[in-house]
């Protein structure tokens, strides 16, 4: 059974629907990447999963339960985690407090998780007492991901994690994502750095006008000339 499965999801912000039947399935071992033109509904899809907008049709199954229209504070304990694209750290809180906030829903001792995060991002351990607002763009992205990992998710969703990062950080972030995935966290992310992302994705989804256009493994999508031309910039 898939970790998460979207079937014909329809939803929007109150006006005309933005998602007109989105389908996707991710296993816990998968890295899924959503690509597509601007305004296709990629971010909206992630928000729909995370309960940040109204889903009016279709089902979103996570761990066998339909979670459509559930709120984040119920989804996080279930193992779902989300890193928005912008403003994804608490700038006035220290790095460590940022991580603690990620573990807000947990009642158990989360110190080992924190150690795990610090192991994965050693820079953060150095800066644990520093306000997150003083970090560079790449470091912030790590804090954001660390925060999301503190809830010990089984599925981590990321919205354009590489946007605005210098090439070096793009590589670092992607490597981190792969590492996280190897630790047993399913990944679903939106990327405009599509070629690079699809290169290591096990599942790729091309979205346009709120609908799936192509689905396959990352390699398949890159190889598809039609996809390459219309969505990956040739």
């Amino acid at each position: 059974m898939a970790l998460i499965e979207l079937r014909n999801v329809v939803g929007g912000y109150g006006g005309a629907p933005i998602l007109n039947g989105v389908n996707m399935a991710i296993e816990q071992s998968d890295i899924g990447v959503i690509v597509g033109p601007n305004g296709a509904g990629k971010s909206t899809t992630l928000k729909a999963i995370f309960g940040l907008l109204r889903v009016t049709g279709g089902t979103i199954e996570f761990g066998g339960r339909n979670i459509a229209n559930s709120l984040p504070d119920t989804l996080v304990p279930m193992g779902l985690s989300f890193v928005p694209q912008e403003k994804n750290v608490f700038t006035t809180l220290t790095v460590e407090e940022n991580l603690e906030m990620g573990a807000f829903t947990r009642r158990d001792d989360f110190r080992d998780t924190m150690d795990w995060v610090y192991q994965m991002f050693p820079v953060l351990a150095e800066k644990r007492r520093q306000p997150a607002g003083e970090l560079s763009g790449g470091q912030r992205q790590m804090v954001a991901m660390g925060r999301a990992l503190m809830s010990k998710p089984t599925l981590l969703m990321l919205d354009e994690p590489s946007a605005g990062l210098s090439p070096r950080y793009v590589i670092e972030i992607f490597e981190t994502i792969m590492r996280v995935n190897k630790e047993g966290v399913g990944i679903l992310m939106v990327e405009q750095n599509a070629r690079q992302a699809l290169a290591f994705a096990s599942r790729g989804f091309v979205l346009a006008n709120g609908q799936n256009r192509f689905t396959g493994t990352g390699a398949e999508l890159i190889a598809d000339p039609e996809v390459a031309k219309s969505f990956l910039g040739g």
Partner: protein
Amino acid sequence: MSSDLVIDVRNVSKRFGGLTAVNNCSLSVRRGSITGLIGPNGAGKSTLFNMVAGNIVPDGGSVIFDGVDVTGFKPHELFRAGMLRTFQIAHEFSNMTALENLMVVPGDQPGEYLGNAWFRPGLSKSRETEVRKKALDVIDFLKLGHVRNELAGNLSGGQKKLLELGRTMMVDAKVVLLDEVAAGVNKTLLNDLAANIERMNRELSYTFFVIEHDMDLIARLCDPVIVMAQGEKIAEGPMAEIRANPAIVEAYFGTPVEVA
């Protein structure tokens, strides 16, 4: 001095509290060029742009634009002098429609003055028709036609970036400063945009000054490329030359992704 330089930044510095974002930095942009500006996150690129475009007053040093010392000028004065910028984090007019976002850009609209609005409606009206036509053209070019009546605040991240870029097409500017317009924009559309930038540069002799992390785009468009790190300019030259510099490669590009 040399009218060859349209932007000449001399020894500017900017501190935020304890942090020196730009440190005694000098660089210049040749007229008619597409000059790239790259560097690690937090190098001070956007801060430099802000000082050139008048959004931040430098702590020291001066900015020469088209032979005039414009240090301390207000952004709108620089706009009138022919400088136009985009923002890294989209600064759309969120409660206005996409179309209006573009229509508001052209300067010197007679209808923007109360006197004309009250007493010379004809003048305002004819200009208004022109502006609308132009805005519609730009909207179509950016493939935003279907959302032209949507509030800009409701657009997707990439669409906002496109709108940001669209503004530069609404006026004839001498110099356009682009701050990471590619981030979040679909690559296919980006190809069209790059072609358009090249065309404007060639046919309308716009000068572009481009901050970008997308090396393909930089390589395609820019010559020369300036590299900044820790608030200072550390290198300048054609892209090939920059890529050949091992120090920069190590600090900035890193190594290619290995597929797991």
